[in-house]
Structures are given as structure tokens and as C-alpha cells.
């Protein structure tokens, strides 16, 4: 019986450690690098690959990566590309990584295990004397017929859809265990951003690695989502029409029928053509029109200082309507249709310096029509809803930038389903084995008590009470279980050590993504072991209780008459 219990404990610990190891690999090594545990994505121009936010400093303050639940925060900059090596071409994914960023020790170890550089070093990516240093996998190096110091030519479209070509210098080759990442070429983040068309003050989407992803992913995502509510987009500009300059606040309005109707209902529109609020709509209040000497059909020049780059932006627009607001807005507000507004607002982010200017109040009747800094997509719970949301990004007719917060449960649900399936299979196998062992334990216990019937009779004859008899067997079972469990723990660690010593070569096999450095990864925890022991002990006591009770109820005389 002791051997059965030891064997059962061993199986339980090994199975749970294997299951936990799979979960750890999936959450912290696969999902983390493929999709991120929590991601905040920024899209412009209704394009999935145009992932840009124009004010990095501001966004990092909003997202607050110093939250204690967050282990790491990484900027996602990457693009599909066509690479030409030495006589061979391949499709690759260029990804920027920040080699100068401080990361936790745990992240550093996981990174080195997932991307083992066998020739060169990640630090070489930051070498400014080399033209676009790059590190690629052994598979890609073979496919492109390149080695260290060779040059790869790459062709891709930048985030704005413009054709771009560049030369990358191979500074390292790495062995990758995650089959999803085998097509990756790493560049220093700064270089990648430059190639893709980002300005130094702009950023790509963000992904967050959490300390407790299963527990905190949804909570953190909801928290970030609540912080990302947009304000009204606006900029303060100089209006020049008819030779006279005036200061004005430029607001945009959405190009939806509802938004336009709300404006029409709350302003008096004068001198307006049929399509005054159309895509080229420029509405100027009567007072401002009088000050600048412009009327509908005439041109105005709008000039403002940019927040970055020390530039000034100037545009010429044709006034499509003169408005007289009825208890809304203010007398120095110029309204532009979002098709005009966002084109300038994002490309040349306004500085809005100088004296305080009008800010629309949420109680303003036309507030809901006003263009916001961005559009925040609602949180979704399921993958299907997430996919529908992604399709809407390309179909949305708004020119506004779109921000989406998602967790791995929505983005990488197929991978997580695989994890659930593996856990269920492991659990089923353990339960079946356990059931077999339990039957053995019960039978052994019954046989033991049967064989000791005369002994029980002797104890009863000597004056031991029923409770004492029962306690004897239960205590015996307890101690046997505990000592057997200890043996089982030792056996389990021996088995895990032996199995994890076997190296598998799963180069192109998706199962390879579950391995760490080619080996099966077990993750035993003392808490888990304690729970397993407690479970075994409880089951053993339960199975021992009824035979022990039956033994205790035996009459001494009957017990003495028993012969095997």
C-alpha cells in the first residue's frame, strides 16, 4: 500500500508540474512574444498595420507601466518584409527590440531561453557603426544563405504604406524554440522605428507582461481602458482671411449624419451651400468672419505651432458656411469636418501653447458631434467579438485614430485553448491513474484489516474501545501516507530530472513551442506539492475510515473465531 501511495503521489506531482510548465511556457514565452498578455494597440487611417500614436510621452504617462502588477512593458514595432540574402529570398518579420531597456531577471532568463544567440550578441544590435544591425534565426540564416557580417536587403511598406528598402547587416544568429518566432529578424528598436517611418516622439503599440497573467490580465486591461477615455481634439491657431489675423480654436466634427444633424440643430447656418457640412466643411462663426473679413466661399489660412519638431503648420481652407451658434460652442471656434481636421491634427500635432483657450464642456449640445483625440474601442470578452472589432477598424468611416485594449484571452485564444486542452488531457490521465491506484489502496486496506481480525479481537478483549481501534488504523494509514508521500516526492523529482534531461529536436514542429531549450519544462511548486499531499492524505483517510470503523465494531468473540 505504501508503494501504491508513493507511486500515486509521484504521478500527481509530475503531472501537475508538467501542466504548470506548459501553462508557463504558453503564457510567458509564446503568448507574451506573439501577442502580449495585455496589449494596447493604436491604429490610424483605418489600417491594421498603421500602428502609431503621435505623442509617446503623453501615452506613457497614461498607461503607467510602473503599475506593480506589470512585469514588463514593450513597444511593438514590426512589419512583414521580403528579404533577399545571398541569392535567396524569404518572407520575414522585422521586429524592433529595445536592447537598452532594463528588464527583470526573470524576463532576461526567459528571453535568453527563448532566443538563444549562438553567434553574436543582442548588444551588437545597438552598434551605431554598423548599418542596421540585425539578428536572425538559424533557420532564416540558412534559408537566406547568410551568416554573420553578411548583408540582407529588405523590402517592405512603412506604416504609411510607402515602399521602403533597406540593407541590414547580420550581427548575430540565434536558435529559436518558439516556432511562431522562427521568421523574425530583430533590429534595434530605434533603427526599426526609423525605417518604418516613426518620428522620435511617436510610438507603436504596447504590450504588457504581467507578474500573474492569469489572475490580472483582464483587471489590468480594464484599468488601462478606463484611463484611455479621449478628450476633444482641438488646436489653437491663427486665422488669416482678407489680410486680417485672429486667434481661433479649431475643432473637428464627425462626418456622420447624426453628428451633422446635431450641429445643424444647434447653429444658424448662413451663406451655406448644399454640402456645407460635407467632407470639405469649414464653418466659421459670424463674429470671427466679420473680424477677419471672410465670407462663405472665400479662403482662410490656418496656422499653428506644432508640439514637436519646432515647426509651424499652415493650411488654406475654403469656408463653406458661416454659423451663429445657439447656446453652444464659443464665438472663436472654427469647425472643420473630420476629413480635413484629422489630416492635419495627427501629422502635425498642435502644441496648444500660449494663453488658455476655449475647451468644450460635456454639457455643450454639440459636444457629441465634436471630433475626439481618438476613438476608444469597447472591451470585448470573446475571440469572435475581438475579430469583429478588428474588421470594423478597416470598415470604419471615421478618420480618427483608434485605440484598442485587449488581453491574451481575446488575441491568442487559440493558443490558450490548446493550453486548456492539454491541461484537461493531463488531468484526465491523472484521474484515471489515480482511480486505479485508489482501488488498489482500498483493497489493500480491506485485506490488511481482514488479516488482522484476530488481532483486533485481542485488542478489544484487552479493553480497547471502538474509538481506539478506529484511531489505530487511521493513524497507521496517516503515517504510512505521509512517509509514502515523502518517498513519492523524491521519486517525482528524480523522474522530472531524468525526463527534462532528454533533448528533443522539434525544428519545424509546432510541438516544439512547448519546450524550453529543446527540453520538457516542469514547474513544481511547494504549494502545489502540499496541496497534492493533502489531497492524497485526505483520500487515504477517507478510504481507511470505513474499513477501520467496521473493524472497530467487531465483537471480541467473533474476532477470535476468525480464521484465514
Amino acid at each position, binding site marked *: 500500500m505504501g508503494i501504491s501511495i508513493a507511486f500515486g503521489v509521484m504521478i500527481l506531482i509530475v503531472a501537475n508540474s508538467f501542466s504548470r510548465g506548459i501553462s508557463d511556457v504558453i503564457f510567458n514565452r509564446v503568448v507574451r512574444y506573439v501577442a502580449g498578455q495585455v496589449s494596447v494597440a493604436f491604429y490610424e*487611417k*483605418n*489600417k491594421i498595420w498603421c500602428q502609431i500614436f503621435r505623442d509617446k510621452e503623453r501615452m506613457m504617462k497614461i498607461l503607467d507601466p510602473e503599475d506593480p502588477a506589470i512585469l514588463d512593458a514593450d513597444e511593438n514595432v514590426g512589419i512583414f518584409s*521580403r528579404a*533577399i540574402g545571398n541569392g535567396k*529570398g524569404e518572407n520575414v518579420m522585422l521586429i524592433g527590440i529595445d536592447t537598452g531597456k532594463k528588464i527583470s531577471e526573470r524576463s532576461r532568463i526567459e528571453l535568453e531561453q527563448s532566443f538563444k544567440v549562438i553567434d553574436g550578441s543582442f548588444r551588437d544590435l545597438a552598434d551605431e557603426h554598423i548599418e542596421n544591425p540585425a539578428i536572425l534565426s538559424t533557420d532564416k540564416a540558412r534559408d537566406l544563405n547568410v551568416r554573420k557580417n553578411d548583408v540582407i*536587403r529588405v*523590402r517592405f*511598406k*512603412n506604416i*504609411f*504604406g*510607402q*515602399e*521602403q*528598402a*533597406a540593407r541590414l547587416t547580420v550581427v548575430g544568429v540565434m536558435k529559436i524554440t518558439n516556432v511562431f518566432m522562427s521568421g523574425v529578424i530583430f533590429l534595434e528598436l530605434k533603427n526599426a522605428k526609423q525605417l518604418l*517611418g516613426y518620428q522620435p516622439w511617436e510610438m507603436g503599440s504596447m504590450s504588457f507582461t504581467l507578474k500573474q497573467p492569469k489572475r490580472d490580465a483582464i483587471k489590468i486591461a480594464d484599468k488601462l481602458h478606463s484611463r484611455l477615455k479621449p478628450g476633444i481634439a482641438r488646436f489653437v491657431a491663427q486665422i488669416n482671411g482678407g489680410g486680417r489675423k485672429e486667434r481661433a480654436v479649431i475643432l473637428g466634427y464627425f462626418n456622420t449624419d447624426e453628428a451633422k444633424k446635431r450641429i445643424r440643430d444647434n447653429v444658424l447656418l448662413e451663406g451655406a451651400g448644399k454640402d456645407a457640412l460635407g467632407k470639405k466643411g469649414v464653418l466659421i462663426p459670424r463674429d470671427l468672419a466679420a473680424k477677419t473679413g471672410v465670407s462663405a466661399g472665400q479662403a482662410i489660412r490656418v496656422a499653428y505651432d506644432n508640439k514637436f519638431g519646432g515647426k509651424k503648420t499652415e493650411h488654406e481652407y475654403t469656408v463653406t458656411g458661416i454659423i451663429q451658434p445657439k447656446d453652444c460652442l464659443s464665438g472663436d471656434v472654427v469647425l472643420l469636418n473630420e476629413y480635413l481636421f484629422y489630416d492635419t491634427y495627427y*501629422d502635425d500635432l498642435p502644441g496648444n501653447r500660449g494663453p488658455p483657450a476655449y475647451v468644450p464642456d460635456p454639457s455643450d449640445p454639440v459636444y457629441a458631434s465634436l471630433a475626439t483625440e481618438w476613438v476608444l474601442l469597447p472591451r470585448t470578452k470573446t475571440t469572435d467579438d475581438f475579430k469583429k472589432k478588428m*474588421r470594423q477598424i*478597416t*470598415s470604419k*468611416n471615421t478618420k480618427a485614430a483608434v485605440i484598442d485594449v485587449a488581453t491574451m484571452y481575446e488575441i491568442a485564444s487559440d493558443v490558450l485553448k490548446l493550453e486548456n486542452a492539454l491541461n484537461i488531457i493531463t488531468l484526465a490521465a491523472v484521474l484515471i491513474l489515480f482511480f486505479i491506484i485508489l482501488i488498489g489502496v482500498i483493497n489493500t486496506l480491506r485485506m490488511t484489516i481482514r488479516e488482522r481480525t484476530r488481532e483486533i479481537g485481542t485488542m478489544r478483549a484487552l479493553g480497547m474501545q471502538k474509538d481506539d481501534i478506529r484511531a489505530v488504523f487511521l493513524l497507521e494509514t496517516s503515517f504510512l501516507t505521509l512517509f509514502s508521500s515523502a518517498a513519492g516526492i523524491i521519486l517525482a523529482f528524480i523522474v522530472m530530472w531524468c525526463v527534462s534531461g532528454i533533448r528533443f529536436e522539434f525544428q519545424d514542429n509546432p510541438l516544439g513551442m512547448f519546450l524550453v531549450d529543446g527540453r520538457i519544462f516542469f514547474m513544481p511548486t511547494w504549494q502545489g506539492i502540499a496541496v497534492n499531499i493533502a489531497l492524497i492524505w485526505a483520500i487515504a483517510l477517507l478510504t481507511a475510515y470505513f474499513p477501520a470503523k467496521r473493524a472497530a465494531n467487531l465483537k471480541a468473540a467473533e474476532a477470535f473465531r476468525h480464521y484465514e
Partner: protein
Amino acid sequence: MSNKMSNTWSITGRGCIVFTVGLFFMAFVKPVWASQLPSIDEVLKKIQYNTELTTDASAKVVLTQQKSGQGTKVVDMVYYRRDADKSFLIVITAPENEKGNGYLRVEDNFWMYRINTRTFQHINRDESIAGTDAKGDDFEDRKLTELYQGALDSSGKEIISEAVLGKIPVYLFEIKAKVRDVDYPKKIYWVGKDNFLVLKEQSYSLSGTLMQTAYYKKYTMVNKKYIPVEHLYIDEFEKGNKTIVEISDIRVDPLDDKIFTKAYLENLSK
């Protein structure tokens, strides 16, 4: 002897005078041949005028794509176009695995239709057509003058000159993108001097790398407009790749409004 000297002086003196006057004129009067170079904007407008269709149009298009190491792919399609509202419809008729798929653009909406799922999906204009290098924006009408302007050299002069392409005298000029949403920020054109038709076009990436060379080998005239019916695109980045586009059966009859609807595309594939 004095006569000879006198004659020599006369000839030499006249020569000097003519030479000096000639220099004077060259310094202050622009030579006739230099004033014959048009501005790039003028050329672009003429190109646009020559090729801009003002009516509906339909045609058959055959795309033959050769990729190094991957063989040849031929895609046949029917193309309907209405520039008045920026609409077009492409229906794939071959190969068999793409037959019935389509692309519909109406104003700012662009959809891809998949016959096997009978679903429409919103896509962007740089979506590949039937897996080829042709993109949605290759089929739409966008005014050249709205997208590009003449490039200037270091002294501020437009980069335009005369040249010869084969035996054809051409204007050779460089243009750069005015807007961000074009594939190639820089292009070089060879345009026929006589007819202002584009004969050759080189397209460059943002970093100045030559990415593609296009040859417009044959034009046909339809309703006093020129349509290039045979073009060749050579991939300059990855040698060995090229695409040939052949357009035939061009008609400019008014098209039924129902053609530019999802229902029409769905019914075609039934």
C-alpha cells in the same frame, strides 16, 4: 598685301562682331531650344488629360505574373469602372481556384468578396488582387497632379530634360509625392514628346532604391483617350520577378448602376 590684310581684317572683324553679338544674345536672350522644355506640371496635366476617361468603361484584363522560383501565375478578370463616383468592380474569371472572387469599390468603401464563404470583407486599397503584386489602388483613378509634383535639383530647377528611348524622343523627368499615401515617393518618367504618353516609369522607395520599372508598350485610343493595353512591370528589387498586364475588349458604353453593388457580384458567382 594690304588688300589681303584688309580682306582678312574684314573677315576677321565681321567674325568678331558676329561672335560678340551672338554672345550678347546668348547672355540676355533665352535660346529657343531651352524654352521648349515644358514644366513638369504641364506634362503631368497632359498625361492626365490623355488618359482620363470621362465615361464608364469595362474591359478584360489578364495579369501574368512570373516569380523567380515560383513559376507563372495567370489571372483573368473583368473590370468595370465609373470614375464619376470612384467606383470599380473586378471579377476574377480564372484560374479556377479564384473564379468568382471579386473586389468592389464604391466611393471610400472597398470590399473583397470570397465566393467560397459568400462573404464581403472591408479591405484597404493596398490589398493584393488575387494574390498578385497588383493592388487595389492600381485599379482606381487618382489624379497624378494631386499625388505628385515636379522634383527640383539643388539649384531649385525642375529635373526635366529631353532624351531618347529606343528611337522615340521623350521628356525625361522626375516627380516626387505630394501626399503620403502613395506607394512610391519618387518616380522617373519617360514621356513621348509628340503625344505625352508614358512609355517608361521607374519607381523608387523612400530611401531612393529603385524598386520597379514599368514599360507601357502599347496604347489604344478609345473615345479620344489613350489606354495602355500592354504594360510590363519589372521588379528591380528581386530579380526575376515580372508582371505583364494585357487589357482587351475595352468598351465605354454606359454601365448599369446595379453593376457596382454587392448583389451583382454575388449573383455573378451563383
